[in-house]
């Protein structure tokens, strides 16, 4: 098994312009862009540890540097995010080389992950999926009225930090509905129940790649991942679609209409 340092050097020598991975900076693991195969920084690259929204960083990098090619170290969820982002025309996979990292069994358990590995593994050993459905099962055991109360209680802790949206690799809209004063009243904390969270959950349907970064970023420990995962389960059951898999099949919920189409729809209303 080769190590990450060799892989980074190899890709840079093979002609990618930069490699996005994690690096140890005085004891802190953070995303870093390595551009030089002989850089002393290569000694500091790390595979495991902290998780960051690589897809989100790449959207910006690909846009800021058109014509440049990037390699990136991807876990299963990073790969799913990039595949889905390419279907949504936010990243260009032709300018990306993904280097796969399989998560450890411990990481898979901590994430409650349904697919803790990317489609091709360059580093690590494939661990079993460990789908954590405890929260979903706990909620499903309740009556509908109790469920509503349960979620209301959870969301009453929301401090409207927007962290769940900001960290999410799949949230990229320029005009976010959560900042629309007609939909979400400014200055009100916690945000009105359930609109704020239902808007986000609906926008994530067929898009969420179950990386759990939102839940990790939530200062109020709201079980966001379970909510979005339940949405994906329904999506799969009803429409047979799993976000981030099969690069050639677009989400049945995605359509890109031309301005004329949209105007026509508006006229017909």
């Amino acid at each position, binding site marked *: 098994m080769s190590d990450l340092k060799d892989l980074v050097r190899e890709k840079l020598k093979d002609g990618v*312009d*930069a490699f996005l991975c994690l690096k140890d*900076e005085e004891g*802190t*693991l*953070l*995303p*870093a*862009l390595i*551009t030089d195969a002989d850089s002393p920084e290569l000694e500091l690259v790390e595979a495991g*540890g*902290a*998780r*960051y*929204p690589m897809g989100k*960083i790449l959207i*910006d*990098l690909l846009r*800021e*540097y*058109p*014509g*440049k090619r990037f390699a990136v170290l991807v876990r299963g969820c990073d790969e799913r995010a990039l595949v889905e982002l390419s279907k949504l025309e936010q990243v*260009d996979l032709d*300018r990306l080389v993904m280097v796969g990292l399989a998560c450890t069994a411990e990481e898979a358990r901590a994430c409650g992950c349904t697919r803790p590995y990317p489609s091709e593994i360059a580093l690590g050993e494939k661990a079993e999926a460990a789908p954590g459905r405890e929260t979903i099962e706990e909620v499903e055991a309740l009556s509908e009225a109790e469920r509503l109360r349960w979620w209301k209680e959870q969301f009453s802790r929301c*401090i*409207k*930090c*927007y*962290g769940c949206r*900001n*960290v999410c690799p799949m949230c990229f809209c320029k005009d976010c509905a959560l900042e629309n004063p007609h939909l979400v009243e400014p200055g009100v904390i916690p945000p009105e129940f359930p609109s704020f969270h239902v808007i986000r959950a609906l926008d994530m349907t067929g898009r969420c790649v179950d990386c759990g970064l939102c839940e*990790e*970023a*939530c*200062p109020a420990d709201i079980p966001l991942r379970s909510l979005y995962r339940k949405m994906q389960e329904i999506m799969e059951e009803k429409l047979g679609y799993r976000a981030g898999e099969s690069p050639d099949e677009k989400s049945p919920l995605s359509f890109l209409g031309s301005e004329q189409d949209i105007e026509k729809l508006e006229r017909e209303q």
Partner: protein
Amino acid sequence: MVDNGKELSYRLVPSTCVYCGTGCGVLLEVMDGRVTGTLPQKDHPVSWGALCVKGWAVHEFVHSERRLTAPLVRSGGELKETDWDTALAAVAEGLSRVAKEHGPDAVGFFASARCTNEENYLLQKLARAVVGTNNVDHCARL
């Protein structure tokens, strides 16, 4: 796509959110020489990868047009840009004059949530040990 020839430059700089005394850990995204975004530092012992809405936006003032980038001193009723030595001399002169004419308790010090703990410590030290007053308060009470 056409290469715009720009040299690749992207890095994350660990820093501390300046908006309140909690001191959450942020990573400032620096792309092409400009601060473009904020990510929470995942292993920060204060905030463990979470931030409030202010922390998430902490990069936004850096390149703001409205940001003061040089000290201003009022002279003849008008604020004028100056250098730090002149500004500090004006502060020292003003404070000593008031303390001398009206006593040290005529002077008050306001600490700031946007400074570090250590800087705030130094400010109260200046108030108590140098000027000789206990008039120390904090902007969070305003």
